[in-house]
């Protein structure tokens, strides 16, 4: 199998090279056949990479440890789910996964645009193939995931890094990579437009939605990484300005800037050089980010390790990208001249410009500070470093200005805002701002930064509400319906604009979470058994420390009773897990988190002594932190709405029947996925042979996994596995209880009474802990279903109503402004 994999990579590399040459030559000679064969080559690479992916996943699932990469990243006992995700757990596989995603994305993009942008396609194919070829080259010569052992293969693998065996970490890389890879498509189109000189705005339309999709995945990847850091790195925070985090956020800044400035070009034909520059920069930064994480240039907890040869190859590639693309920009400068000028600084385009400058400055600053240690060493010979406080000092005020602009921009008119106009729109938001400041000051909040942040959040939120309110009011008058229908119609008529506002609501929520960080409490103390410590409103007591084993790891679990206002509210279980295959490494510290809307209680077992049962407990209170995750959810929802428009209108005007079926299919798919998720998880539990009786019901099977044998001789194995007499007795007891019709919770509580404690449980009870986190994907899925359902309803009910009816209105000024914008935006 390894040979097949290596062959597939080699073949892909050769075909990529061919596709590049065929496309360029075909375009220059005007040979349709050559161009078509180049496109075919691109599709073929996607197919080959899909097969290669199947080969390596198969190798992981069948525990083929003759492949070096499999032996490094997997082991026999590794759970099924993590055997699959181990594919992108290491350096070599992550590069291969990258190429796989790029080939799929690239093929889809070319397939969709091959007729509409016929003149650009050859160069798009050439660009994508070149990028693929670079990464394939890395694998073929240097980082082959299919390389085998020269010596006899090991019997078992070393297993995936414990830190990566986490739900969030499993889905974080695919999302982030999709975001990174997706940025290649706009770059390919931009470069093709530069090369061919077709620099009218049509290439922008082709890439706008791709950028939005990629941006969505990038945002989501960032969020998943943050949640992962929050749960697994156990330091009480989610963002530490680590080089690798910075590398991922750099293209996010420039892509966000592009999504805003592209509107200025569409409306006013300005900023044309700027936009193409942003597209190039974003792509460059994705490669730069990959380079940072994989070459060992900067030291980081997340980096893959030192690799000078890889660093050299990447540097060469980056130099080529920059020289070639900016060379093309300079060559095409005459064609890129702006067709309009800025009329006034009090206009929406000026606000967009300011937003762009600030976002770009963010990117520049973060890149500078990340590279500062490396640069200072190269220049002065002395290594100087800057820490998170330095980042925070800069990014905090910048972030606040950005937040302010989020509210300001939508209130300004294009071209020029009049004074009347300003007074009219600013009254409510400024009122909300003043009230918030007054209210919070009265409550005794003095921290200026978070006070400003809260006030600005109120300001921005009010501006968005106002936009919805005014738009809906105008539409109600025009169409003569009720306000809710008008609101829905407003969003449906102009999904990109109002979707964008919903994204802004998400940003406001995220900032709310950031502001809460100022009131974080963090206390560490040594607790002997029975001792307690109080932080804020919470008191935590060390009840006991226990060792719990499963086949893969040994967990040291502290049982902490948590009190609030004198009453016990919870028992929490911060733990450390020692993985058997990673004996020489430090244990994985798993924080216990009690999530809440107002604040999280976050417990970390910093250290322990089994003999004396003493622990060092780190108690952190994180106010408002969950609003960050909710904010990202809102952001995803808004982007989803914004992404719908073009196809919606073509569907709605062309054929009515098909969109319904499409939507229903998608909705059904999502429902199926939602239902499928828990089912596949429970399918992991194994049947046990031998003397163990078959469980009669699902409940019994489930509870046998939850309850551990108490005999003391079998390393605390669950009842589904242990074959000793005690376990057999306990199984009989369980059967009796289930036959008596007791429910899961009733049995647990009666057994707690019977055994005088919870030590019969294989894992501590999971009250409160993680509940919010698990709800989150379902919440998103639910929002998606609702969104799709609402779109389906729109299409089916009002197929002919896509043109606005010309009804005279009394609110002439507002109406005209709205119509003007509605007409011009899409």
């Amino acid at each position, binding site marked *: 199998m390894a040979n097949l994999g290596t062959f597939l990579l080699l073949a892909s590399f050769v075909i990529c090279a061919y596709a590049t040459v065929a496309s360029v030559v075909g375009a220059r000679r005007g040979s349709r056949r050559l161009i078509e064969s180049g496109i075919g080559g691109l599709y073929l690479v996607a197919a080959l990479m899909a097969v290669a992916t199947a080969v390596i996943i198969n190798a992981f699932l069948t525990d083929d440890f003759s492949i070096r990469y499999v032996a490094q990243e997997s082991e026999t006992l590794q759970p099924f789910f993590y055997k699959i995700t181990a594919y992108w757990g290491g350096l070599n596989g992550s590069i291969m996964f990258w190429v796989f995603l790029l080939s799929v994305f690239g093929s889809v993009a070319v397939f969709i645009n091959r007729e509409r942008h016929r003149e650009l396609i050859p160069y798009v194919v050439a660009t994508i193939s070149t990028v693929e070829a670079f990464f394939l080259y890395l694998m073929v010569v240097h980082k082959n995931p299919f390389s085998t052992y020269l010596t006899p293969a090991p019997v078992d693998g070393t297993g995936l890094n414990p830190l990566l065996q986490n739900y969030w970490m499993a889905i974080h890389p695919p999302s982030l990579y999709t975001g990174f890879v997706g940025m290649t498509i706009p770059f390919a189109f931009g470069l093709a437009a530069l090369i061919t000189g077709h620099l009218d705005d049509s290439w922008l339309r082709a890439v706008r939605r791709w950028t939005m999709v990629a941006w969505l995945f990038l945002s989501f990847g960032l969020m998943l990484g943050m949640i992962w850091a929050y749960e697994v790195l156990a330091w009480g925070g989610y963002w530490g300005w680590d080089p690798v985090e910075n590398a991922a956020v750099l293209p996010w800044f420039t892509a966000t800037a592009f999504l805003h400035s592209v509107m200025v070009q569409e409306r006013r034909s300005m900023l044309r050089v700027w936009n193409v520059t942003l597209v190039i920069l974003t792509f460059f930064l994705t490669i730069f980010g990959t380079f940072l994480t994989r070459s060992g240039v900067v030291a980081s907890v997340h980096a893959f390790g030192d690799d000078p040869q890889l660093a050299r190859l990447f540097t060469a590639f980056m130099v080529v990208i920059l020289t070639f693309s900016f060379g093309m920009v300079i060559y095409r400068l005459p064609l890129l001249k702006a067709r309009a000028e800025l009329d006034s600084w009090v206009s929406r385009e000026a606000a967009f410009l300011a937003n762009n400058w600030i976002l770009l400055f963010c990117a520049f600053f973060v890149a500078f500070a990340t590279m500062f240690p490396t640069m200072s060493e190269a220049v002065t010979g002395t290594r100087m470093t*800057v820490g998170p406080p330095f980042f925070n000092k800069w990014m905090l005020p910048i972030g606040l200005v950005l937040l302010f602009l989020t509210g300001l921009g939508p209130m300004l008119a294009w071209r020029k805002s009049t004074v009347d106009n300003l007074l009219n729109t600013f009254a409510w938001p400024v009122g909300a701002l003043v009230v918030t400041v007054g209210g919070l000051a009265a409550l005794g909040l003095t921290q200026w930064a978070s006070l400003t942040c809260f006030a600005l959040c109120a300001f921005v939120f009010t501006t968005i509400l106002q936009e919805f309110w005014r738009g809906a009011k105008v539409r109600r008058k025009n169409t003569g319906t009720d306000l809710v229908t008008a609101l829905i119609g407003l969003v449906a008529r102009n999904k990109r604009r109002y979707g964008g506002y919903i994204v802004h609501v998400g940003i406001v929520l995220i900032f709310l979470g950031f502001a809460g960080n100022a009131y974080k409490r963090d206390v560490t103390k040594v607790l002997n058994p029975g001792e307690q410590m109080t932080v804020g409103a919470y008191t935590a007591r060390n009840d006991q420390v226990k060792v719990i084993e499963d086949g893969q790891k040994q967990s040291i679990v502290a049982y902490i009773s948590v009190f609030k206002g004198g009453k016990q509210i919870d028992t929490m279980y911060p733990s450390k897990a020692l993985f058997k295959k*990673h004996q020489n*490494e430090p244990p994985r510290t798993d924080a216990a988190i009690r999530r809440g809307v107002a604040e999280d209680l976050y417990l970390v077992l910093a250290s322990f002594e089994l003999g004396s049962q003493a622990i060092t407990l780190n108690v952190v209170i994180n106010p408002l932190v969950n609003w960050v995750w909710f904010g990202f959810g809102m952001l995803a929802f808004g982007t989803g709405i914004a992404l719908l428009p073009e196809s919606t209108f073509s569907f709605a005007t062309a054929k009515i029947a098909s969109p319904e079926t499409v939507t229903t299919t998608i909705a059904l798919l999502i429902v199926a996925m939602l239902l499928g998720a828990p089912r596949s998880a429970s399918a992991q539990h194994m049947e046990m042979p031998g003397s163990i009786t078959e469980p009669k019901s699902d409940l019994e099977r489930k509870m046998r996994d939850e309850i551990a044998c108490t005999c003391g001789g079998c390393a605390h194995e669950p009842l589904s596995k242990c074959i000793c007499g005690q376990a057999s007795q306990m199984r009989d007891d369980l059967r009796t209880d289930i036959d008596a019709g007791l429910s899961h919770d009733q049995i647990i509580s009666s057994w707690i009474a019977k055994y005088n404690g919870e030590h019969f449980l294989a894992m501590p009870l999971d009250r409160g802990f993680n509940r919010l986190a698990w709800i989150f994907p379902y919440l998103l899925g639910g929002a998606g279903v609702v969104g799709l359902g609402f779109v389906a309803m729109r299409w089916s009910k009002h197929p002919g109503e896509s043109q606005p009816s010309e009804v005279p209105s009394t609110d002439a000024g507002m109406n005209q402004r709205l119509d003007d914008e509605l007409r011009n935006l899409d």
Partner: protein
Amino acid sequence: MAHRNIKIAVTAVVLASAFGFMMWTTLREGAEYFKHVDEVVAQRPTLEGKKLQVQGYVIPGSILHNSNTLEYRFKIQNNPIRAGEPGNVINISFTGQPPDTFKDEAEVVAHGQLRSDGGFDANQVIAKCPSKYEAAGGTPGQAKS
């Protein structure tokens, strides 16, 4: 047109110099020297009282810990034991929770200040892992802000 370009150029220069100045001043506060033990010992007078990160290897058996508090005392030397020449030694006192990777012979980076007696007061200790995700694990002792 020329007039407009001058205006743009002046704005750009003013903005750039303002940012440059702010960056420079904040960098002076925010930047920390990153030095090895030998360098710190050699340049002791100039480094006293400055924000400093010192990198070295924990001398085996030197970690003293008061088990009821979070006070730690340990010694680090310039080179790992296996290198043969140990190099200079610095005494470090630290109050807090060191990461799981902190143990004898570990490569550590201590953040803090040099005392006038040559000892080092650390407010944070980060232990490095020999390698990252490839073969071994990362460092859970993430930088705390």
